[in-house]
């Protein structure tokens, strides 16, 4: 990996933005701008979800030819159109689809795709091109361009997962598993240490302490929901997200993470189970957000490092691929199919799909249409937003 490029690129990017890097250091009070409490919930499908068995091209003979053993049969598909249907385990999303509040963007990827999990999720998390290496998450850059209001309990909260992902480097990014436990333990934290830290590791720890103290002072974890949250770790993440969203002190973004999608082997049962958790979890999240009157303020979007190879492998699984469909839902979402269906008759030399929509166009949609933040400086270039939102 080029090690000199990242810093130069990062500098260029930050300097190119209005206000420049000083925003990171400037006192927040004067800069915070009023903004409707619009929330973004990102759901990472960790390991790379198999798009073709999620949003199934069930009228395409190529699909069944490429996947003689693991294809979803036409009679099992939940039809959305004469050519496209959902995996049956995603039935909990059908009511959202029928309400016109679920958009499915097909063919999301980027040019010259990298098939390493780690490099590719880094590309997605930092909104870089395949050739550049950036340090900060794309949400972090968005919050530098438009600081999150001071009164918020945090810039963003990462629930589950081992990293902050798109929130990496965020001035006030917080990882939080269970809000009640977080509040209990935060009593041990001294958020007011004066001494400047001597090295990067200590600086990081002091920043985390300050974030904890800030979030703990504003977090309330006592909302009682009527919505039933699914059992299991992803259901627990959804419950935490709902608790955070119920706070009067806002948060700009929440990241959830459902792992296990790297289905090289014995895919059908494993994948069905994951999609069931995803569908039930997202349906519960919708219920909880409606209950607290925040469904219209919320935009939920899935993402992953890439999709999977159209041709099944010998182990009843699929190898790393490229483009994949993603879900966008919320009270203001314009439902329906967007992007372009997979062209299984036109695979590249590696047997992979070409992308139809650059993932940064999805991010541009969030930045410009959801948050009214200019997207080009954050994304390092111009990506046309998609028409996924109502007024």
């Amino acid at each position: 990996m080029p090690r000199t490029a990242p810093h130069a690129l990062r500098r260029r990017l930050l300097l190119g933005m209005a206000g420049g890097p000083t925003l990171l250091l400037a006192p927040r009070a004067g800069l915070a701008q009023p903004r409707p409490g619009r929330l973004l919930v990102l759901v990472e499908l960790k390991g790379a979800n198999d798009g073709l068995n999620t949003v199934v091209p069930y009228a395409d003979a190529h699909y069944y030819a490429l996947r003689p053993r693991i294809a979803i049969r036409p009679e099992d598909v939940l039809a959305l159109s004469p050519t496209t249907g959902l995996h049956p385990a995603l039935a909990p999303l059908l009511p959202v689809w029928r309400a016109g509040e679920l958009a499915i963007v097909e063919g999301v990827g980027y040019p010259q795709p990298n098939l390493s999990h780690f490099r590719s999720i880094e590309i997605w998390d930092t909104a870089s091109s395949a050739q550049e290496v950036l340090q900060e998450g794309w949400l972090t850059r968005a919050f530098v361009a438009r600081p999150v209001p001071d009164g918020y309990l945090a810039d963003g909260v990462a629930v589950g997962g081992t990293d902050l992902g798109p929130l990496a480097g965020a001035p006030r990014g917080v990882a939080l598993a269970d809000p009640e436990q977080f509040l209990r333990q935060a009593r041990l934290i001294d958020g007011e240490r004066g001494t400047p830290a001597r090295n990067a590791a200590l600086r990081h720890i002091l920043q985390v302490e300050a974030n904890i103290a800030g979030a703990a002072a504003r977090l309330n974890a006592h909302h009682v929901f009527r919505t039933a949250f699914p059992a299991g770790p992803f259901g627990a993440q959804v419950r935490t997200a709902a608790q955070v969203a119920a706070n009067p002190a806002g948060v700009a973004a929440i990241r959830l993470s459902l792992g296990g999608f790297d289905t090289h082997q014995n895919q059908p049962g494993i994948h069905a189970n994951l999609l069931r958790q995803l569908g039930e979890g997202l349906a519960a999240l919708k219920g909880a957000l409606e209950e607290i009157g925040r469904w219209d303020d919320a935009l939920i979007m899935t993402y992953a490092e890439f999709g999977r190879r159209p041709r099944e492998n010998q182990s009843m699984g699929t190898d790393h691929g490229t483009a994949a469909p993603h879900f966008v839902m919320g009270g203001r979402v314009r439902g329906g199919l967007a992007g372009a269906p997979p062209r299984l008759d036109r695979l590249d030399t590696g047997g992979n799909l070409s992308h139809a929509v650059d993932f940064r166009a999805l991010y541009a949609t969030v930045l410009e249409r959801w948050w009214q933040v200019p997207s080009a400086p954050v994304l390092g270039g111009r990506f046309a937003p998609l028409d996924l939102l109502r007024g």
Partner: protein
Amino acid sequence: MRRLVAALLAGALIGAGAGAAAAAGIGVDDARFLLARTGFAPTEAEVARLAPLARGEAVDALLAAVRTAAASVAPAWVDEPFERPPGAQSSEDARRAYQQREIRRGLELRSWWMREMLETPSPLTERMTLFWHNHFVSAQQKVRSAQLMYRQNLLLRQHALGNFGELLHAAAKDPAMLVYLDAATSRRAAPNENFAREVMELFTLGEGRYAERDIREAARAFTGWSVDPETGRYRWRPLAHDDGVKTVLGRTGAFDGDAVLDILLAEPATARFIVTKLWREFVAPDTSHPADAAEIERIAALFRGARYDLRTALRAILTSPRFYAPEHRGALVKSPVDLVVGLVRQLGVRYTDPLPFAMFAAGLGQNLFAPPNVRGWPGGEAWINSSTLLARRQLAERLLRADDPRGLMAGVPAAMTEAMLRPDAAPADAGGANRMRPEARAPFARAALEVHLDVDAFVTASGGPAGASLARILLAVPPVTPPPAGSTPRQQLRALLHDPAYQVK
């Protein structure tokens, strides 16, 4: 036990350092630094033994003490006949019974390794075994056999400071690895690329030093490697092997898997990749300083010249002047295992079953035998986020409260402890037990009652109540917030364990 361990270490050191102790030694602070970086937070006895030695002698003493086998008694089941994990065709009952047994075995396996880390006379052996566990990653969730994970651990420790080339060949054919990266089911008709990709990206060359075509071709070469379902041992299946001509990294031939590994070992990038990773593990996370980059380049050449002898590489790293550079002090974040094992060893915590310590490390993000993915634990600053930092503080707090007859269960309501101890216990109503697997609750509670810390004994043994010396013993760099003047040794200890500086080494 601790005394015995110390005596063994003393023997090894005296042997290596005889006759030179009179020369200028590295001193107490550098000895503590070297021990913390190559092992876990050291006891004062360990420090005293290393301090009189010169830098090279001290490193030689550590290397001379390295072992190739574990001393702790392995769980009884490791020698039982191998049982293949049940597949989709097995009954629901059979699968559930197998899974529950594997959960129990997984707990015993973690306890076994944790004991080895706590009691070994060679912490460096454990650090290197853990380093390779995080390099040649396999995880129990996918391998589904505690026996295979145990055997892999034996393999990694056998080669821990041996020869990297031999380790690569052995780890590639290790059954846990074959299952984890799907090589065991890869067939000539449709090769599975998972292992071929990771062996280049993560085990040898590093990302970006190969093309997608190299991966596809190498995947063909690795076909035929498999696991015998009866024994759980490596088995060659000639009929599954693609014996055609492949082109990998510009070389063409009818390669098999071993031939591809040799091609990877012939690339200079491999030595550089491994030495860089060792540098990040032992010296500093950022390798961009020109003096560090030059050392890495020099040591990589040395490593290659020594045909991948790992002792040569590690000795060069640990005797490099850059290892002791002032800016690197306190630059590494302690991993959860580092933190937990260090606390127990340094404070002299007593225990019978070390299972709680393995579970604490898991709670902090480092579950032994279960790294999150094939890249392993990302480490460094990523260890510390708001939720893990809080859990680290909570752990120190709990250990300080173990200065109580009820050990780590001090402060836990008796009814809840009782509920945890009953094997058929219903989920307890509060606290950490809710997030614990039901199978783990009783063994955890039993072991936790036997974990004791004698704070006064520790303070006395570390040279009395002088705050400055306590800080020097516990921290690699001065505290961010020094304990207030006039605080008792117990208060000082608590303040220092909660100081951000305690999280780095």
